[in-house]
């Protein structure tokens, strides 16, 4: 088991390394391939007064005139050992993990991400719980009552759910539920430590919006999985033992159904934690996703890099957790790994 964990960890680290590399390549190499010069790049990142001196200063600060490999090395070095930056006469130590400073706010990127993390965590985990529980429950009921009114209705809604982009649902909710009819309070984030009630009421709509889409997908998948599992030979064995149908469904049918769902959940939640871009954008929640979009609009390179990596990090972590969970739920994978 230990080796299994270590092996998975190793794979995760490798994955992160590659993601870093690819991210780097996209931002540092692709623009050059597309024909941008060092000066043009620097001018994009320099701020509002692109004097020749300032452009040169930006080139120096970002090592833009150095070979790509060296630039990458500096970037990686920053992440592991930190880096020093000069602000005015101050030499500021940006401690590891250092993704550098935002071109826009001159704040260290990493703490900025951490600052916004609670919003995204709240959104992602809250919605995650809702969609997992909701989706799986509906899926199970539909599978058990296959062909019933409930089944048809819920699967219809689910199909509609997966067919609706989150920004459309979000917009509709905002336009009607919030502004026109006032059923829901205006969405917004209040720290839970400040006011738990405001925290919950402010996030309820984003939760539901994000969860609706995902729950729909989970319901469909659970139902399909459940139906498939219920056709397995071992279910017949369980029935042949004389077990109650309830036991057959919930003990023997559910576990194998949920096993793949867990994997998907890990991937999804990882992606959501890496920035629920659209939901945060629609509801103007200052989470990681919106931070990233802002950074992208402002060509704030360090932030874009930082957020992307951070997002990938979440995906990797969640996948790792899922892998371990999977090994626990399904004894077979421990061996084949």
């Amino acid at each position: 088991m230990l080796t299994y964990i270590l092996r998975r960890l190793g794979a995760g680290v490798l994955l992160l390394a590659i993601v870093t590399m690819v991210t780097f390549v996209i931002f540092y190499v692709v623009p050059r391939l597309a024909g941008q010069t060092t000066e043009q790049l620097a001018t994009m990142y320099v701020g509002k007064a692109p004097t020749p001196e300032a452009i040169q200063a930006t080139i120096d600060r970002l090592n833009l005139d150095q070979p790509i490999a060296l630039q990458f090395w500096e970037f990686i070095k920053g992440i592991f050992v930190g880096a020093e930056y000069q602000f005015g006469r101050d030499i500021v130590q940006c401690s590891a993990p250092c993704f550098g400073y935002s071109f826009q706010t001159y704040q260290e990127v990493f703490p900025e991400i951490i600052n916004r993390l609670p919003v995204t965590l709240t959104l992602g985990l809250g919605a995650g719980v809702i969609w997992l529980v909701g989706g799986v429950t509906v899926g199970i009921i539909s599978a058990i009552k296959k062909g019933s009114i409930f089944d048809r209705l819920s699967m219809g809604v689910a199909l509609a759910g997966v067919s609706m982009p989150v920004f459309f649902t979000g917009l509709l909710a905002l336009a009607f539920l919030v502004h026109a009819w006032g059923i829901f309070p205006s969405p917004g984030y209040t720290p839970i430590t400040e006011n738990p009630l405001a925290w919950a009421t402010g996030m309820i709509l984003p939760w539901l919006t994000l969860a609706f889409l995902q729950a729909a997908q989970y319901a469909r998948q659970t139902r399909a999985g459940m139906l498939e599992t219920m056709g397995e030979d071992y279910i017949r064995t369980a029935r042949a033992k004389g077990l109650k149908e309830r036991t057959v469904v919930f003990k023997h049918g559910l576990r194998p159904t949920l096993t793949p769902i867990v994997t998907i959940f890990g991937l999804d939640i990882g992606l959501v934690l890496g920035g629920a871009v659209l939901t945060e954008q629609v509801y103007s929640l200052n989470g990681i996703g919106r931070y990233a979009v802002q950074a992208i609009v402002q060509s704030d390179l360090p932030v874009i890099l930082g957020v992307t990596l951070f997002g990938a990090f979440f995906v990797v972590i969640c996948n790792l957790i899922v892998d371990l969970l999977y090994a626990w739920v399904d004894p077979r994978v421990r061996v084949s790994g």
Partner: protein
Amino acid sequence: MTPTGHSAEPTTEPVVRVRDLKITFPTMDGDVHAVDGLSFEVAPGGALGIVGESGSGKSATSLALMGLHRGTKARITGEISVAGTDIVSASDARIRELRGNDIAMVFQDPMSSLHPQYTIGNQLIEAYRTHRPSASTAEARARAVEALERVGIPDPAKRINSYPHEFSGGMRQRVLIAMGLVCEPKVLLADEPTTALDVTVQAQILDLLEDLRQDLGMALILVSHDLAVVAGSVDEVLVMKKGKAVERGDVRTVLSEPEHPYTQALLAAVPRVEVSRAQRRAEIRADRAAREGGSAAAPQPTGASVRPEKQESTTPGEPLLKVENVRQRFKVRGGMFGKASDFYAVDDVSFELYRGETLGIVGESGSGKSTLSRMIMRLLQPTEGRILFEGRDITKLPERQLRPLRRDIQMIFQNPYSSLNPRLTIGDSIGTALKVQGEKDGKLIKKKVQELLERVGLEPSHYNRFPHAFSGGQRQRIAIARALILQPKLVICDEPVSALDVSTQDQVLRLLSELQDDFNLTLIFVAHDLAVVRQVSDRVAVMRKGRVVEMSDGDSVYEDPQHEYTRQLLAAAPVLDPDEAKAHRAERARLRAEAKKAAASEGTAA
């Protein structure tokens, strides 16, 4: 436990009674009458064998006995009574009470019939506690261990915590039987419990069922497509065809004096281990001569009968194929720690093969037969050793240089369903060989293919059909045609008939034999069925765990086995004669006892 049989006389009242059972599945193409008016009964402690070819409705009947068709679209009429309860009309709760408690079922596929995510113990305990809710966990556990012990799982107290995937197929089948036994049911229903298993394991399981029946006084319903399997284990046998019983009666009577032509044909097709190669060939040639003489009235050229003689008098000289000390290593990831360890699937095998000769290779599943075949085909590169074909070392030839050689060595595969590409017409499938060997002329290819199709007993007009339109036997003919189109010198048949039912098996074997005569083929014939191998081989090699444990000319292996393992195999082979089956059973018991004495841990399922 419900006291159903209290007042009734257990000896007179049958424990299972089926009257005029009809099972119908509604499908898109109308109703499928899977079972059509079936009746039988089983006395307490009695044993009934249900035999029939694939699709004859055996499983449908078994499931009906358990009430497992409930909730599906199947329509069931007639009367089924198990332990005094009418299965058709009883309440769900009553049926549940019955299942596992009065009637237990052992399913066909041990690989998929156990829940992969719960331990063996968990599943056994659950089965027990369902019907003994008052039993404590410890009690149930003790029962589970006991049941495992009884079915011969070594060290059951420890293995009870294992997951199914940690068990071999035979062990899983035992677990399933143990699960059926925990509540000591009145009837044990075994639906092809050994189809997926090796002969030795099959014999063990059958012996086990027999023992249990003796010890516990259960009634047994044994379902199989193989008459020989049931022969030694049941009192009464029921032969099914297309959902109807064509014959029913005492096992001896049915086997010795079958009345229904279907049963007769079935019996005739069963390969018999006691028939020698020479007898069989003579029989086939006679049949052929009679047939061709009758239909075409053309005199059989003597060449066909001359050539075999030449082969039988084993001419030394240059061997066609020479295999020298080949080994094949695989890396396997073992256990939790995932360390790759070396594993030799074929270990130091040597033999020579002369033109026109047939070498039979027998051995249990996993003994390395296919691996050896694939090495000779050079689909695998031997880790060690040499392979010489016509004196040329082909051990390390690169793929490119092998290509011309492919004309000379061909292979026929085990599974007719998977050895043909479902998306290619059979014409394409067969023609591919010519195409990849450089033939460009499409018309010529078509002509050749059609000729060959005719030769293997198919219509030339089948050229453009897809494989799904053919039966298993026909597909195997197509596969044979594909192997022969390049006119190879050596053909390796890797279990070419294992997936076919007996009657088809017989046809295919005959075809092969004829073709060998006509094309002067040299054959390597791989199979796990001793009887089949005997009938086709000049020489037989017995493989076990990658090694050849015994090799000599065909009949002597059977009549005077030298190696212990060969004897085990022979003793395990199912035979049609119930008395002989009994004798074999005794022999097996003796061998087992000996093995136990030798304190060897071998002998349990591999």
